[in-house]
């Protein structure tokens, strides 16, 4: 049984600078996703819509768009769950490159501030550090982040101030801080409690509602704030000790 859907796609042509809405009608079979619909429009009607897609099993995080006003991954939203004029728009808070493709380089680069790596720079390792399943449980939720940038697109603070590091970077920083094998915790908290760090977040909480892998970046940021306050108090009380120990290491 096929059902008729009208798809409105927001187009943008970088050369002419024009924005307009394309209307397409498609006949969807049972379990057609928005991504399948876009593929069909692009291939049969040669509409030439530019969009990102790769794995079609909602694990790579490239097909993030706004469908009917909600930030979703196109590959796991089904047409039968949406009401009829399905409107597809590019992600908010990012410069639009063309049609549904947005420029997320800046947000990806902000991950650098989260120092997303453990300290071990050695190349060979013989011994295996023990990590109990309980310790692993701590980082299970925030380590699911697929970097699809939907949370950054749902954050009003990021929309108004592009220097803010964004919920994604904070969630990944929280994942590495809570990892039992990590010892960069101090430096990472320095970076997070900095000017563009977590203090700009007013806990709107929308980034957690939008996350397709329910990583809950809002919760991670609040916990980082608490850790940040304690860290700052500690580093404020003993500034002399800290600088001396660094030279020793």
């Amino acid at each position, binding site marked *: 049984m096929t059902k008729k859907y009208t798809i409105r796609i927001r187009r943008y042509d970088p050369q002419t600078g024009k924005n307009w809405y394309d209307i397409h009608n498609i006949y969807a079979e049972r379990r057609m996703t928005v991504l399948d619909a876009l593929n069909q429009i692009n291939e049969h009607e040669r509409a030439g819509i530019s969009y990102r897609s790769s794995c079609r099993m909602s694990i790579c995080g490239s097909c993030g768009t706004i469908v009917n006003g909600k930030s979703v991954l196109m590959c796991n939203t089904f047409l039968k769950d949406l009401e009829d004029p399905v409107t597809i728009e590019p992600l908010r*808070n990012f*410069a639009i490159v063309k049609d549904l493709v947005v420029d997320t380089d800046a947000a990806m680069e902000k991950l650098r501030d989260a120092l997303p790596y453990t300290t071990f720079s050695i190349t060979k390792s013989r011994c295996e550090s023990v990590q109990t399943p309980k310790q692993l449980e701590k980082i299970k939720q925030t380590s699911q982040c697929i970097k699809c940038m939907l949370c950054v697109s*749902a954050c009003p603070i990021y929309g108004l*101030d592009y220097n803010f590091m964004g919920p994604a970077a904070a969630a990944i920083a929280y994942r590495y801080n809570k990892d039992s094998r990590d010892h960069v915790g101090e430096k990472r908290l320095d970076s997070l409690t900095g000017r563009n760090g977590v203090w700009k977040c007013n*806990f709107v*909480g*929308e980034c957690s509602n939008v996350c397709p892998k329910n990583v809950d970046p809002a*919760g991670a940021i609040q*916990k980082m704030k608490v*850790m940040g306050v304690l860290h700052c108090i500690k580093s404020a009380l003993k500034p002399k000790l800290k600088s001396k120990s660094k030279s020793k290491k």
Partner: protein
Amino acid sequence: MKKLANTPAPDWWKEKPAYKIYYFREYSGILIAIWGLYWLWFIGAIIFSRIILAYFPDIDPVFKYILFIPLKYYFLFNCIGFIGAIIHTITWLGVMPEILPFNLSKKQRHLIFSLLILVWLGLSTLLFILLMNSLL
């Protein structure tokens, strides 16, 4: 804040329902601030009136009238403060499970939220009884 080319103005989120809850929570701050300002005015008026009456007891009634204006609005502003305080309490207790340093499932968060509400009610009645019978 440089404006990025061809991107919708950054107030797209204002009419979204999910952000209404965020508004609601932040507005309680205004109500409490107004309540606080009223009390500053109130205490200022009392201290000022005590000083004036101490030094020149017989002042013309117009000045006395001005000094006692805050008394008339005592009930109104305290109601504003009370509403603000209730909103703040409920939303803040709703947020507190997020701040606690261990990640909890949704069910656990609701549990802690209701626990906090109970603690708050208990504490309030206790304080209220303490304040009331010490008055009588």
